[in-house]
């Protein structure tokens, strides 16, 4: 599929490819700091915290219950799962479905998200398209079909040109996604310059530890706990202990640290 190789002017490299990389990178960093400035603290409800801890406790009971005596395990299972008075049966939380239109905090969050992420991308993309148009910037290393031509080769009206040769606008978009790992290196995880993850989850609210419907979580936890049985891990612990001598290595150390430093 490869046509004759084009030789590009090396000044394209200096004046187009590298500047676009720098611009994308700097804009990303600026976006990160602006987002941090505009960031408002999410207020957690007491009930949510409490519920998430209860679910955690139930999960731990399922996993580590075998280290408890049978009576203790039965007591806790009964507390959670009893048909009339069990926690998961009795407690029903009021679930207010969060309407995206009317819930003010979500609206402001969405606006902030749009402002800091989508707007700069459109602006800079458009500017690059206008400033660096009319020439081929780079070649993608894999062959593309002709359908990609109008998308990737804006401003270049050559019918016979291979679709692998792309314009600067596509190089810009390539950078936006490619520099994600660079951002991770410099700004740590959870940085706001990471656009692709924001585009993936539309909920600009932070993910709460408890899903928005605690009742469902309670029900699934109840089911999981019902089927767990108690197999005491300490059934034959003495016999296992007795069969060999204890290892006292390192019980007495030679040096005694008495001073501060």
């Amino acid at each position, binding site marked *: 599929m490869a046509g004759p190789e084009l030789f590009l002017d090396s000044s394209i490299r200096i004046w187009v490819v590298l500047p676009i990389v720098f611009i994308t990178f700097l804009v990303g960093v600026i976006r990160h700091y602006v987002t941090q400035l505009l960031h408002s603290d999410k207020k957690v409800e007491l009930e949510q915290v409490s519920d998430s*801890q209860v679910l955690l406790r139930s999960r731990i009971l399922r996993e580590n219950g075998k280290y408890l*005596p049978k009576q*203790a395990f039965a007591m806790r299972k009964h507390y959670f799962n009893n048909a009339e008075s069990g926690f998961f049966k009795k407690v029903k939380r009021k679930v207010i479905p969060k309407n995206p239109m009317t819930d003010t905090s979500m609206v402001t969050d969405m606006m902030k998200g749009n402002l800091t992420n989508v707007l700069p991308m459109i602006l800079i993309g458009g500017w690059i398209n206008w400033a660096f148009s009319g020439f081929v910037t780079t070649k993608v290393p894999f062959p593309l079909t002709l359908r990609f031509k109008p998308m990737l080769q804006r401003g270049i009206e050559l019918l016979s040109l291979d679709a692998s040769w792309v314009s600067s606008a596509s190089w810009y978009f390539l950078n936006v996604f490619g520099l994600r790992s660079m951002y991770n290196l410099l700004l740590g995880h959870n940085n706001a310059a990471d656009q692709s993850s924001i585009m993936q989850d539309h909920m600009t609210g932070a993910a709460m530890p408890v899903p928005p419907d605690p009742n469902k979580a309670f029900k699934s936890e109840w089911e999981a706990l019902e089927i767990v049985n108690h197999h005491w891990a*300490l059934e034959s612990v*003495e016999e296992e*202990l007795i069969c060999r001598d204890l290892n006292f290595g390192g019980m*007495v150390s030679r040096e005694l640290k008495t001073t501060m*430093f």
Partner: protein
Amino acid sequence: MASVSELYDVTWEEMRDKLRKWRDENYRNSEQIVDVGEELLNEHASKLGDDIWIIYEQVMIAALDCSRDDLAVSCLQELKRQFPGSHRVKRLAGMRLEALERYEDATKLYDSILQDDPTNTAARKRKMAMLKAQGKSPEAIRDLNEYLEQFVGDQEAWHELSELYINEHDYAKAAFCLEELMMTNPHNHLYCEQYAEVKYTQGGLDNLELSRKYFAQALKLNNRNMRALFGFYMSASHIAASPKVSAKVKKDNVRYAAWAASQINRAYQSIIRKCDRL
């Protein structure tokens, strides 16, 4: 009075790193912290950068322990200046009031924090600590129970509650708290050992058997836990000496006790040998 850096011939970086180590590992050597921290803050404050704020907090709490109200107040003022309206600083101000035994003022302060932020656990814990300091154990137990109903996952709270129950001799409830801790930290030999001790104290054949099992578990998790070894020996011999047990159980327990005794001997022998060599 020679300064710390002269006495031990250390640089300010070493002092700062030592403070960090004490902070990370939760040491409570308040006098040492006050000595090192005070000098660090007086002589080298400008070199510390942003670390200085957490060092202020650490030194302030240590100063309260050593009744150095002057040092505590100066640290608190610096923190208040840098972080006005912060709940964390407010809690420190409350701690200072507690140190001066102005308990009502401290309670008012903590209540104001909780009004602002009902999920603030630090303020609630300070209120309970005040009740304990004033000796009002039953109220402290009641408040701690309410706290734990909402924050079931708070392990240091469970541990504190178990201690309070042990002081009130309510061993059944203390055992419950320790079971919570064992559940969340199944590989911690100290919780197993404490649980076994509580069961042993409760007495009765079932509890003794349970305690023997958990002493054994603690030993399995950490071979060098001498307390657990002694506990294992005592519970096994107690069961063996009891008139109500069957012959098989008696035989088993005599075997366990004999094994424990031989292990204790081995431990002391090894220590004597090591000491002779030193």
